[in-house]
């Protein structure tokens, strides 16, 4: 039976889709059959980050309205076995999502997969609520800045009240993923520290992904950054996924890298 996980944040542009693509890919690499659902109806992005935008024929809304069946809409990833995605519609809007329709799709997917990752749109409107409603677990993506932290706080509150689990009196297990972390700017007090964010949001930390050029490079190429195993961000997502699966790993990329004499002489940044 699959575990339904929502990747959410409240604020836009913090790295939900990037995180969804990378965590999903890493789960599939570990041998778990994984499907990613893009709930950002009208502004779909996950297909771009996964590099399968040219293979989108049918989408989530087509399946919901009975114009296509699930197997026609699911797109198989070319790089990793057991990884699929269900794209959002670009031409419709979020009002096309119905609770019953989404439930039916998720139930159908549950038989076939180990993990169902729901990529939430920004905001707290219908799309975001639909993405979280059936989730048993949540990864809350937050940037180290006050507005992102406040929006995440709001989203955690909604996870505790607007999900089916909450309605049944059970907690949704929410974990914190901090992205775009820049230790140097934290040191200069331009950015909130991991401790500050943890204190405010009061949910367990599952990972810290450093600010990295590799992320933008990977998005533009349509290859989830976790494939770039040399990059700090790629490694951070592998760590994050391992922790998500219950493994204990120390947090990395929290300290400023002290550049040695040679790298200061010959390049670096």
């Amino acid at each position: 039976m699959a575990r339904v996980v929502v990747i959410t944040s409240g604020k836009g542009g913090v790295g939900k889709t990037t995180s969804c693509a990378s965590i999903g890919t890493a789960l599939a690499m570990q041998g778990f059959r994984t499907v990613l659902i893009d709930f950002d109806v009208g502004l779909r992005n996950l297909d771009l980050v996964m590099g399968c935008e040219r293979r989108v024929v049918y989408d989530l809304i087509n399946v919901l309205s009975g114009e296509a069946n699930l197997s026609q809409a699911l797109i198989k990833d070319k790089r990793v076995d057991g990884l699929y995605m269900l794209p959002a519609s670009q031409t419709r809007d979020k009002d096309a999502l119905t609770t019953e329709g989404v439930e039916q799709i998720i139930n159908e997917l549950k038989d076939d997969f180990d993990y169902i990752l729901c990529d939430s749109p920004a905001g707290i409107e219908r799309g975001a609520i639909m993405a979280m409603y059936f989730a048993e677990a949540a990864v809350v993506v937050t940037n180290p800045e006050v507005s992102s932290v406040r929006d995440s706080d709001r989203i955690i509150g909604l996870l505790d009240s607007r999900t089916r689990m909450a309605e049944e009196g059970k907690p949704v297990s929410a974990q914190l993923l901090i992205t775009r972390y820049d230790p140097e700017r934290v040191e200069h007090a331009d950015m909130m520290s991991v401790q500050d964010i943890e204190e405010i949001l009061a949910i367990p930390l599952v990972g810290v992904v450093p600010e990295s050029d590799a992320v933008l490079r990977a998005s533009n190429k349509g290859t989830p950054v976790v494939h770039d195993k040399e990059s700090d961000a790629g490694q951070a997502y592998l760590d994050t996924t391992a922790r998500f699966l219950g493994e204990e790993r120390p947090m990395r990329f929290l300290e400023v890298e002290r550049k040695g004499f040679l790298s200061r002489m010959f390049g670096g940044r």
Partner: protein
Amino acid sequence: MALNVSGQQAAFQFKGGALTVTTLEFFTADVGYIERELEQQTRRAPAFFSHTPVVLAFERLSGDEIVSLELISAVCKRSGLMPIAVRCAQDAIKQSAWALGLGWFPPQSEKRLQEVSKSRELSVKPARIVRNPVRSGQQIYARDSDLIVVGSVNEGAEIIADGNVHIWGSLRGKAIAGAQGNLDARIFCQQFKAELVSIAGVFQTFEKEEWPENETVTEIGLDGDNLIIR
């Protein structure tokens, strides 16, 4: 209000009221036994027994016990007590009470006793307790009671109580105590980083620079029209 048609001073006035009266509750109808115990008690506290009006209560006795009210009343009078009425369910006792010029009260039923104790418990309304952090966009109201938050109140969250507000973590959002106008209401928190606090309608907003420097337990109360933060 007394109806005074003639313009004369009224001769009297009936007033209802609850007086505190000592009740003498009997566990036995044995007059000899009662007399011996009363004598002992009289010797111990003679002042208490002199001319103290008492209600003689017989509810604790089983219904078929024969009570000689006349003798019991006489025994009480000898000890200095002044029986004014009886309280019982038995019709026989009621009749002899009236014959002796004593008043009669209906028995206090178990149910009524329970109701009294229940209503007494409810007069102190328990505090509302919130175990999770109060998050941005959430609003919690503790009607007619205190509010205890075992966690922090985050930015953009709002907590309101008619009584006091206790926060075991940091107060980063808004806290309102004494929402119905209780001037003595207070707000307590472990760390004060509030956006706004209000007590009985007197409120103040805060910029970052206005927070107390020492990050320790903070109490907010009202002194006249001013909020006192310490």
